[in-house]
């Protein structure tokens, strides 16, 4: 299992801040396909994905135990 985190506007779209999903072995790009199927408001490019607190590439492969986060455009400061 991997744990998925949602923040800010994305969290309001999913209605959850965190969920456990069985996506080990999939790429980040495949994660996006999965997320857009489940949450129709999601759009690729509307967020970056972080794996274990580092920004990930679309081709990166998820492993069991990974902590994955959807990072919408940041607006700190």
């Amino acid at each position, binding site marked *: 299992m991997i744990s998925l985190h949602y923040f800010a506007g994305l969290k309001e779209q999913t209605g959850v801040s965190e969920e456990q999903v069985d996506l080990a072995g999939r790429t980040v790009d495949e994660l996006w396909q999965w997320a857009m199927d489940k949450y129709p408001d999601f759009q690729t490019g509307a967020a970056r994905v972080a794996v274990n*607190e580092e*920004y990930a590439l679309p081709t990166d492969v998820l492993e069991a135990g990974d902590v994955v986060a959807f990072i919408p*455009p940041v*607006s*700190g*400061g």
Partner: protein
Amino acid sequence: MKAFEIVTEAINPQAYADLVLRPEAGAVTMFTGHVREWTKGVRTLYLAYEAYVPMAEKKLAQIGEEIEQRWEGTKVAIAHRVGELQISDIAVVIAVSSPHRKTAYEANEYAIERIKEIVPIWKKEIWEDGEEWIGDQKKKPEGELK
């Protein structure tokens, strides 16, 4: 307190300036970002900040390392507050010490630009007639041009 941190209570900026001061520092610059009441004619009631805390602290520390490598002799501390903030409250503080002043200004400005690029923190503006996660293009209040 840590040199790179996300906090939930009011920020005391001087504590971060003290953290970067050393005998070889001739200059300290401090930036504080405050909740502003008016933005493009729309009145903000208050702000709510959210962060992905462990990653945000890691990215703040990364910005500190980038600066200390790029500008020799600098030392950096950064804190960002999350939760509900009222008008004039400090959302972020950046303190940079350096032997010379030019560097202290440049490095400080670099830090705020990088925070706005890579640190997972989000701001929600709350107005009288609506609210919006900034960075998200939905739910604009009427009358705001963008």
